[in-house]
C-alpha cells in the first residue's frame, strides 16, 4: 500500500516536472544555430610548431597559456583539433615537441607526458614522471628524449626519458659544470644548455652529445635575460640591462652572434648557406621582413613588407621555410602582445586569430543607436517649440528628407561610409545589440551579437587589471546610453596604471570604439571604491565617483561635479577587504565644494571572503508579493542595497566552514547569516529580486548543494513606493531550502528581462562544458510536500534536469568562467553570453516567447485558410443571389 502511494507520488512529480520543463525551455532541432553561435579559441600561444605537408595537412601545432593543445590549419587558421587539458596548475604545459606525434609535458609535479596523433588529436601514449622533492626544473625535448634539468652551483642534474616509453625513469646523472655560477643566465634549447655569464662568456653544452663549446661575445653591459629564439639550432636572444639585444646561435660546434635592432623580432632559419637571421622589424603596425646570413653577415637582397596590416607588436613563436634556399619564403607565426596569433606567409598576413577572447574579464551588452531616419523622426518629436507653424514646417521638412532618401536608395546612389556599418542599428525588438568585451590583456572589443563579428578593437598598453577573489576584473560603467542622440554613448573602464598601480580611467564610445575625454586619464591616487551616480545630468551623463584610499572623491567627467554635490547625502558606498573579511560602509560628505568619504559602519567577518553577490542595477521587480493558498499576500523583501557575502574558514573542529551573510550596505545591518559545516568552496552566489541562491561543495556528503533563500517582509507592505534602509529596521521572514545539484558548478547567473514580468531562470555553467537552465520554481524554498499552494511543486532534494534543459545542447564549452545576461527589448527574452575558453551566445525565453509569434508559426496555413474563407464567402454570395433570382422568376 505504502509502495503504491510512493509510486503514485513519484508519478505525480514526474508529470509536474515534465510540464514545467516542457512548458518553459528547450529548442527544436531546426532552431540550432538560428539565434545562437559559438566561437572557439585556444588562448595565448606559449609554444608552437609549424609543419608543412601539402596544402591540406599543413598544420600549426600550438600549446597555450590556457592549457590547450591544438592543431590549427595553416591555410585559414581554423581549429582542426583541440584538446583542453586540466584547469589550473595541473594542466600547465611546459614543453611541446612535434615529430611523428605531438608530445606535450604538463603538470606541476607529478608531471604527465602525453602524445597526440598529428591528424586526429587522439591520445597515443601517456606516462607520468613521479613527484620529486625538488622543484624548479627546466625541460626540453630533443630527438625523442625529454630532459629534466636542475641547475645547482657548478652542477647540473640531468634526467633523461624516452618520450615514447618514459624509460629510463628516475635515472639522474650529475654533470659538473665549473662554468656555471649563480650570476649566469641559462636557457635550454634544442637539447643544449646555453649559459651567458656576466662577463659575456658563452658556454653551450649538448645534453645528449656532451659536446661543449664556448666563446665570448662582445657585451658592453651585463646580460639581463635570455629568451628563446625560434630556430632549428640551439640559440638564444640575449637582452642586456640597457635593452640591447643580440642573437646567439650554436651551429656545428661554433658560436655565431649578431645584433638585433630593438624594434625587430628575430628567428634563425636553416639554409644551404648556413644559418640565416630572419628579422621582422616593426613600425606602425607593419612588419618588414629581412634576412642576414649569420656566418658572413651578408644581408639578403629581398625584403618583404606587410601593407597597412595594423598588427600589434609581437614575438616570433615558430616558423617554417618552404625551400632550403637562402630566401624569405617562410611561414612566420607571431604572438602579439595583445595575445593575437598572426601568420605571415612570405611577409604577407595570412590570418589573425584574436586569442585574447579566450580570457574575458568583463562583458556588457549595449543597445545600438537608432538609424538616421528614425533619429530624424525622434528629433522632430522631441523639439516642441516653434508653435504649430514650426511643427508643421519640421514635419514637412523631415518627410521631404525621407522621400529624398528613399529615392536615393532606390536609385542606388547612396554612398557607403567606410567606417560604420549600415546595418548596425537598433532593431524593432531590441534584440540587436553590441557586446563590449574586456579581456585579460586590457584589449577591448566591440562585437555584434547576431553573429559574433568583431566591429572594433582597441588594445590598451599602459594599464594593469584589478584582481579580486583570485581573478582579474575590470569595473565597467555605462555613463551614457546610446539612446540620447546626438550625444555619443559613454562607456568607462577603470584600470591600474602600469608600474604605479594608481587609478586609470579609459572612456570610449562603445558603438564605434573611439576614445572620449582624451582616452586614458591617469589619476594620482589608488582607488578604493567607485560609484556610478544613479541620476543623469542634463546631458544624460551619469557621473562616476572615484573614492581614493585617502577618502577623497574624484568625479569623472569633472564637469559633473555639481550633480554629485547635489546628490551627495543620498550616496552610500561600501568597500570590502577580501583577505581579512573587513567590510566598511561610507557616506559622502560635502566640504569646501569637495566630497569626502566618511566611514559610517564597519563589519569584521574575520575570515577570507570567497564570494560577494550584488543585485543587478538594471533589475526591475514586477510583482511585489506572492499570493498564498488562503488568498492573502506575502510581500517580498526587495532591498536593492542587500549584498550577499560568503566567507570560508578552516576550523579545527568542523574542518571547512562556509558562512553566508546578507548585509544591508547602507545601514550596515547584518540581516541574516547561516553557517555550513564541512562545506568547501567554490561558492557561487546569485542575489536577485527577493531571493538569494548559492552553491558550495558539501565535504561530508561529497556533493554540490544549492541553497535558496527567499526573503519576505510579511503580510503587510511597509512602503509601496520605495525601499529605505534607514527609516526602519525590517526583520524579513526568510524561507530556505537546500537542493542537491549533480554537477560541479563553474559559473551561475540569473536571467534578466526588461520589466521583470517574465519568470527568472538560473543559468548554471558546469564543469562538463554545458550550461543548464534551471527554472526558479524548482529552487523555490516554498517547495514542500504538504503545501497546497498553487504553482508550487512538491519538494524533491535532487535537481537532476533532463537534457532538454541544456542551453548549449551538444556544444561543449571548456572552462566556463562567466555568464552574462542582458535584457532584450522584448519582455520575454533575455540575451545570454557564456564565456570561458569559448564564446557562446544565445537567447532564452524563460516564460516562452509570449510577446511574439512563434518562429514556427504557419503563415501559409493561415493565409490559405483566410483566402479560402474569403473566396468561399464571395462564391456563396454569388450563388445565393442567383438562387434568389431564380426563385423570383418562379
Amino acid at each position, binding site marked *: 500500500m505504502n509502495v503504491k502511494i510512493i509510486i503514485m507520488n513519484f508519478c505525480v512529480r514526474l508529470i509536474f516536472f515534465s510540464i514545467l520543463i*516542457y512548458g518553459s525551455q*528547450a*529548442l*527544436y*532541432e*531546426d532552431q*540550432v544555430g538560428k539565434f545562437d553561435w559559438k566561437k572557439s579559441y585556444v588562448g595565448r600561444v606559449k609554444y608552437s610548431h609549424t609543419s608543412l605537408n601539402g596544402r591540406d595537412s599543413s598544420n600549426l601545432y600550438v600549446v597555450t597559456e590556457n592549457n590547450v593543445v591544438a592543431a590549427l590549419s595553416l591555410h585559414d587558421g581554423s581549429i582542426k*583539433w583541440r*584538446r*583542453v*587539458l*586540466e*584547469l*589550473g596548475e*595541473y*594542466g600547465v604545459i611546459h614543453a611541446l615537441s612535434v615529430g611523428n606525434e605531438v608530445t606535450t609535458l604538463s*603538470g606541476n609535479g*607529478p608531471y*604527465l607526458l*602525453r602524445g597526440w596523433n598529428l591528424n*586526429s*588529436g*587522439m*591520445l*597515443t*601514449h*601517456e*606516462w*607520468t614522471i*613521479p*613527484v*620529486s*622533492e625538488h622543484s624548479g626544473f627546466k625541460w626540453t625535448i630533443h630527438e625523442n628524449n625529454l630532459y629534466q634539468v636542475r641547475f645547482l652551483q657548478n652542477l647540473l642534474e640531468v634526467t633523461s626519458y624516452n618520450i615514447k616509453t618514459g624509460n629510463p625513469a628516475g635515472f639522474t646523472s650529475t654533470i659538473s659544470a665549473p662554468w656555471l655560477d649563480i650570476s649566469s643566465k641559462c636557457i635550454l634549447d634544442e637539447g643544449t644548455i646555453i649559459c651567458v655569464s656576466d662577463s659575456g662568456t658563452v658556454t653551450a653544452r649538448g645534453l645528449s652529445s656532451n659536446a661543449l663549446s664556448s666563446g665570448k661575445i662582445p657585451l658592453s653591459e651585463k646580460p639581463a635575460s635570455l629568451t628563446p629564439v625560434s630556430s632549428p639550432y640551439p640559440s638564444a636572444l640575449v637582452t642586456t640591462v640597457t635593452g640591447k639585444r643580440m642573437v646567439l646561435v650554436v651551429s656545428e660546434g661554433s658560436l655565431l652572434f649578431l645584433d638585433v635592432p630593438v624594434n625587430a623580432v628575430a628567428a634563425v632559419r636553416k639554409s644551404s648557406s648556413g644559418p640565416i637571421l630572419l628579422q621582422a622589424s616593426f613600425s606602425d603596425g607593419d612588419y618588414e621582413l629581412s634576412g642576414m646570413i649569420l656566418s658572413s653577415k651578408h644581408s639578403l637582397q629581398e625584403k618583404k613588407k606587410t601593407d597597412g596590416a595594423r598588427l600589434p607588436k609581437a614575438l616570433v613563436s615558430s616558423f617554417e621555410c618552404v625551400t632550403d634556399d637562402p630566401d624569405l619564403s617562410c611561414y612566420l607565426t607571431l604572438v602579439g602582445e595583445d595575445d593575437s596569433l598572426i601568420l605571415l606567409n612570405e611577409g604577407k598576413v595570412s590570418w589573425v586569430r584574436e586569442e585574447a577572447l579566450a580570457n574575458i574579464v568583463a562583458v556588457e551588452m549595449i543597445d545600438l543607436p537608432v538609424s538616421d531616419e528614425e533619429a530624424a523622426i525622434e528629433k522632430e518629436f522631441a523639439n516642441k517649440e516653434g508653435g504649430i507653424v514650426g511643427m508643421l514646417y519640421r514635419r514637412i521638412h523631415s518627410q521631404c528628407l525621407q522621400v529624398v532618401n528613399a529615392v536615393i536608395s532606390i536609385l542606388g546612389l547612396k554612398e557607403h561610409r567606410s567606417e560604420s556599418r549600415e546595418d548596425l542599428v537598433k532593431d524593432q525588438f531590441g534584440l540587436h545589440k553590441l557586446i563590449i568585451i574586456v579581456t585579460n590583456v586590457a584589449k577591448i572589443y566591440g562585437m555584434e551579437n547576431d553573429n559574433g563579428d568583431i566591429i572594433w578593437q582597441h588594445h590598451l598598453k599602459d594599464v594593469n587589471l584589478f584582481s579580486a577573489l583570485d581573478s582579474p576584473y575590470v569595473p565597467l560603467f555605462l555613463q551614457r546610453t546610446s539612446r540620447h542622440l546626438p550625444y555619443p554613448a559613454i562607456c568607462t573602464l577603470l584600470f591600474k596604471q602600469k608600474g604605479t598601480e594608481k587609478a586609470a580611467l579609459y572612456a570610449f564610445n562603445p558603438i564605434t570604439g573611439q576614445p572620449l575625454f582624451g582616452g586614458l586619464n591617469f589619476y594620482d591616487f589608488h582607488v578604493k571604491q567607485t560609484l556610478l551616480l544613479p541620476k543623469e545630468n542634463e546631458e544624460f551623463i551619469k557621473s562616476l565617483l572615484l573614492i581614493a584610499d585617502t577618502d577623497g572623491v574624484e568625479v569623472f567627467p569633472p564637469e559633473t561635479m555639481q550633480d554629485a554635490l547635489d546628490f551627495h547625502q543620498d550616496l552610500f558606498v561600501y568597500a570590502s577587504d577580501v583577505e581579512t573579511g573587513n567590510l566598511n560602509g561610507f557616506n559622502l560628505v560635502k566640504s569646501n565644494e569637495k566630497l569626502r568619504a566618511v566611514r559610517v559602519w564597519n563589519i569584521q567577518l574575520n575570515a577570507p571572503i570567497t564570494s560577494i553577490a550584488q543585485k543587478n542595477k538594471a533589475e526591475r521587480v514586477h510583482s511585489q508579493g506572492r499570493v498564498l493558498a488562503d488568498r492573502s499576500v506575502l510581500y517580498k523583501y526587495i532591498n536593492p542595497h542587500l549584498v550577499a557575502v560568503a566567507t570560508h574558514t578552516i576550523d579545527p573542529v568542523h574542518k571547512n566552514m562556509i558562512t553566508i551573510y546578507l548585509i544591508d550596505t547602507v545601514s550596515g545591518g547584518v540581516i541574516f547569516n547561516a553557517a555550513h559545516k564541512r562545506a568547501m568552496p567554490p561558492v557561487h552566489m546569485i542575489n536577485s529580486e527577493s531571493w538569494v541562491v548559492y552553491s558550495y561543495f558539501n565535504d561530508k*556528503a*561529497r*556533493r554540490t548543494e544549492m541553497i535558496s533563500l527567499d526573503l519576505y517582509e510579511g503580510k503587510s507592505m511597509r512602503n509601496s513606493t520605495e525601499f529605505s534602509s534607514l527609516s526602519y529596521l525590517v526583520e524579513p521572514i526568510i524561507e530556505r531550502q537546500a537542493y*542537491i545539484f*549533480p*554537477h*560541479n558548478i563553474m559559473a551561475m547567473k540569473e536571467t534578466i528581462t526588461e520589466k521583470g514580468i517574465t519568470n527568472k531562470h538560473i543559468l548554471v555553467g558546469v*564543469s*562538463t*562544458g554545458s550550461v543548464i537552465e534551471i527554472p526558479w520554481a524548482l529552487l523555490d524554498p516554498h517547495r514542500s510536500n504538504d503545501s497546497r499552494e498553487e504553482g508550487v511543486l512538491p519538494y524533491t*532534494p*535532487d535537481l537532476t534536469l*533532463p*537534457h*532538454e534543459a*541544456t542551453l548549449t*545542447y*551538444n*556544444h*561543449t564549452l571548456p572552462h566556463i568562467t562567466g555568464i552574462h545576461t542582458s535584457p532584450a527589448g522584448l519582455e520575454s527574452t533575455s540575451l545570454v553570453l557564456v564565456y570561458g575558453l569559448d564564446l557562446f551566445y544565445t537567447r532564452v525565453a524563460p516564460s516562452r516567447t509570449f510577446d511574439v509569434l512563434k518562429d*514556427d508559426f*504557419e503563415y501559409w*496555413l493561415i493565409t490559405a485558410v483566410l483566402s479560402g474563407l474569403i473566396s468561399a464567402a464571395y462564391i456563396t454570395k454569388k450563388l445565393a443571389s442567383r438562387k434568389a433570382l431564380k426563385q423570383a422568376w418562379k
Partner: protein
Amino acid sequence: MERLVYAKVLLCFGVVYYCISSIHCVSENIDSNTKDVQFSLITGKVFPVDEEWAPADWKSEIVVHLKGGTQKAFLRDDGSFTFSNVPPGSYIIEVTHPNFVYEPIRVEINSKGKIRARKVNYIQSSQIIQVPYPLKLKAIGFKRFFHIREQWRITDFLFNPMILMMVFPLLLVMVLPRMMNDPEARKEMEQFSNLTKYDMPEMSEVITSFFGGGNEQKPKSIKQAKKGNKSCKSE
C-alpha cells in the same frame, strides 16, 4: 560477549570480501621519497551506445573527468583511459561526450591504494552498490536535447474532435434535406416511417371519445339539418 565475537567475525568477513573485490585493482603505487601520499592509478574502458553505429570519431570527443575536471583523461585508440597520480580519496568519474549519456561512477581509494568503484548516489550517500573495477563504462543512451516539432498532418486535422464535432452537424444540415428531395429516397423514408407507424389511436381522441361519447352524432345531425334546410330553400 558472544555478540562481540560475532561482530568481529563479521568484520573479518567484511575485510576478506573487500580484499577479494579489490584483487582486480592494478593500483600502481609510486613511492615518493618525501611525501607520504601514495598515488594510485585509476584505469577503465569506455564503450559507445552501439559499437556498430557509433560515429568514427566518438573516441576523440570523449573526455573523462575526475573530480569535476581537476584531472582529465583522454581515450586511447582501444577506448581505454588512465588517471595517474591520484591521491587517496573519493572521486566522481564522469565521462563526457556531446551526445552519449554515461552514468557517473564514484571511485574510492583508501590510504593503502586500494580502489573500489560504486554507483553514485547523491541522496543516500551511505548506500553502496559496487561496480566492477577496472571500470567498464558503457553509454546508456543518447542525449535528447531537442523537442520534436509537431508537424501538421491532414489526418491529425481531420480526426481532431473539434473538427469532427463541426463536420457532423454540417452533414446533418447539408445532406439530410438533399435526401428528402430525392424521390427514391423519399419513398424509402416513407417506407421506413410506415414501418415505425403504430396503429394506435391517439390518446386525445380516446379520451374525448370516452368522455363525450353521445355527443358525437350531434354535429352531424346539425349538419344534416342544415343541409336539409338548404335543400329546402333551394327547392
